[in-house]
């Protein structure tokens, strides 16, 4: 694709910003300060206006400096208000955000009425106009970005401590408060860098959305930072290309929608934390519990008459747990398929293999009951319900160790025999 000069600038700027935002946003996300970036962006506006009023230029450096100072003042005010008054953090953020922004708007309307004001182009800071990025802006972005990255690399260990265990950091003698200010300062720099590209409102998304997406894939900070920067950069690149190739598609919002889509995919599909996989695991666990319960029911009903050969009728089995016929069929189907139970007409019974399988479930149940009764000294009429849950979660190894620790008990607190360990005879 042939890129125009402007489109190339936008592409470079958005990619750079995405990477920076993703990096610093990761720390903000982990420190539960996601919305601080939002407040800083709004607070920067009056700084931009005052810098313009003082210098009368719209060259990037003075405006950056103004935004930086105002953003810092805003963040310090939030910290001070929360520490010294009864105002909570959420209100403090909301107050600084909206009042600073109000002051900024007042200044902006004031500037627009100045003779030279109309051409000031300051309103691009509101929504961001990536198309107004010029080479000088990119240079400033690149230099500031390099400084930010250098700081993050140099203070990686300290920032990690600050994010996860600031108390431990203080006990090591690290100046945690100063590190916090430094990290906030870096955040302000990134926010200010992003103002022109994506604007006041959407800055928070360039910080938080890539970080939230990256968080789903890894539990390691280093990997999260790289991944978050990558997602941010990719969203920036894809978003700016899309807005360059389609008409009337503003860059900032498109970038946000791209990174939001990545976030949704990550939330659903990330290997460990993915919601979809969690659902699958829940279903599998539920199915295993159903299966083990039916095995156990069949076994216990047989045990009562010491007769496992007679098949039990459907209504009889339904009555045990108050299941509907459909529920029972759903539990029975996998057992029949695995050859653990067989259906004869309207009746069901365990196969020899099924009986062995069922013995293991009952064994776990009864050994746990013995443990509760003897070691935790729970009365024998209090142990059944807990064992109902534990029989599905205990491993065979854990049960074998429990059995040994309890001195190989032969029967449970109610007097029922404990079936032997899965026999080794099959193997020998």
């Amino acid at each position, binding site marked *: 694709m042939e890129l125009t000069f402007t489109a190339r600038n936008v592409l470079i700027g958005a990619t750079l910003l995405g990477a920076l935002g993703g990096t610093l946003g990761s720390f903000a*996300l982990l420190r539960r300060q996601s919305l601080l970036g939002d407040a800083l962006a709004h607070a920067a506006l009056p700084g931009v206006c005052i810098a313009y009023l003082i210098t009368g230029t719209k060259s990037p450096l003075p405006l950056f400096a103004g935004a930086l100072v105002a953003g810092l003042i805003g963040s310090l005010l939030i910290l001070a208000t929360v520490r010294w008054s009864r105002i909570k953090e959420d209100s403090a953020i909301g107050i600084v955000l909206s009042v600073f922004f109000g002051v900024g708007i007042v200044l902006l309307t004031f500037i627009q009425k100045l003779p030279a004001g109309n051409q000031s182009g300051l309103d691009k800071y509101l929504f961001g106009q990536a198309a107004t990025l010029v080479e000088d802006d990119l240079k400033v972005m690149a230099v500031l970005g390099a400084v930010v990255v250098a700081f993050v690399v140099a203070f990686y260990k300290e920032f990690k401590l600050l994010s996860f265990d600031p108390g431990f950091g203080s006990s090591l003698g690290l100046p945690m408060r100063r590190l916090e200010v430094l990290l906030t300062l870096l955040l302000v720099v990134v926010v200010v860098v992003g103002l022109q590209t994506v604007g006041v409102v959407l800055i928070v998304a360039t910080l938080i959305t890539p970080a939230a997406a990256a968080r789903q894939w890894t539990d390691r900070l280093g990997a999260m930072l790289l991944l978050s920067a990558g997602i941010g950069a990719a969203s920036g690149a894809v978003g700016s290309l899309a807005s360059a190739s389609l008409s009337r598609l503003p860059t900032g919002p498109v970038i946000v929608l791209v990174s939001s889509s990545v976030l949704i995919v990550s939330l659903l599909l990330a290997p460990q*934390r993915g919601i979809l996989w969690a659902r699958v695991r829940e279903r599998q666990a539920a199915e295993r519990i159903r299966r083990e319960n039916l095995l156990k029911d069949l076994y216990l009903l047989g045990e009562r008459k010491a007769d496992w050969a007679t098949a039990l009728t459907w209504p009889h089995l339904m009555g045990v747990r108050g299941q509907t016929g459909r529920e029972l069929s759903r539990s029975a189907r996998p057992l029949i398929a695995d050859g653990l139970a067989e259906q004869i007409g309207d009746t069901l019974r365990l196969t020899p293999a099924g009986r062995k399988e069922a013995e293991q479930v009952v064994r776990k149940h009864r050994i746990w009951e013995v443990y509760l009764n003897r070691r935790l000294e729970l009365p024998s009429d209090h142990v059944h319900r807990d064992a109902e849950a534990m029989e599905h979660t205990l491993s065979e190894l854990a049960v074998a160790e429990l059995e040994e620790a309890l001195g190989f008990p032969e029967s449970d607190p109610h007097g029922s025999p404990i079936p032997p360990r899965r026999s080794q005879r099959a193997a020998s």
Partner: protein
Amino acid sequence: MSPTLVILLVGSCVAASCALIGSFLVLRKMALLGDAISHAVLPGIVIAFLITGDRAALPMVLGAGALGVITVMLVELFNRSRRLKEDASIGVVFPALFSLGVILISRYAAQVDLDLDCVLYGEIAYAPWDTLTLGGTDLGPKALWVNGSVLLLVLLFVLIFFKELKISTFDAGLAASLGFSPVLIHYLLMSMVSVTVVGAFESVGAILVVAMLVVPPATAYLLTDRLGTMLGLAVGVGVASALGGYGLARAWDASIAGAMAMVAGLLFLAALLFSPSHGLLARLLQLWRMGRRLSGQLLLLHLRKEGEVVPVSTLERRFGWTAPRLRRVLSGLLRSGWVEREGEGLRLTPRGAEVLETTGRAQLAHKL
């Protein structure tokens, strides 16, 4: 009606309804959810525009209300999935929805008569000229109708559900055990936030709604500990900000909405510094008094232990105090008649001993 009066009335209505609803947001530590809703209603408004083709008030309110509820539901969905913390949930949801709104506006700019600048900081100055006509008769400014109805709705909501709101705000567990559903109240409140926000949207814009929602209630929160008083004060501060902001904007020829936020900010700052109960100065004063009382007690205890006339010169060294501090403490005790001078020394008076005894017992009782 003169244009100025219309603007003042609209501003006061917006300020009052925002202050009432915002008080509950501030007390429930959900100020930023209000911020999120105020941005996220944008696509709802745009979609209502696209469907109806004009700026009819009711579809806009419905569209915004729907988006407000969707925002709250999405935030809670992410939050409950435990993959994202609450702040992050808010931080990812509202920019996405706002982006959607901005893109819709840009794509369908021809059909949507909605200015992006207006979305951010509103234009209350146009309120007097955008009038509502029904069957050919001019019924007056539309913004006044819309915001007046919103205020009425909010007032009714707060009056009818005052008890429920109060209990579920301060003790959600108790509310649940009494049979009020905190979840239902929560969603009702959030719907009211959406309605308030959309009413205010055109007048003050997405971001300054937040100023009206959060700043006056936070100011009131610094001045009182009673919910009813807080609501009244918040409305007062809000209306004062609206009126003061208008005056300021006229004087400076600047954005009215921006000036309103600015005045609200100044009022908050004043309360933060000078509130008699929770202001910073009051707290400093309290700390200072406590320090002085403690020093006085220390000195009395010392005199009692020594049991006789203690030379003043030894006290300075004994406590490591500076001479002015010692003088201040002493003059207080002398004035109360708890110690008396005897030559170059000091002695505990019977009254001083009595005071020491009773405060000691009171403090002990307090500790027990």
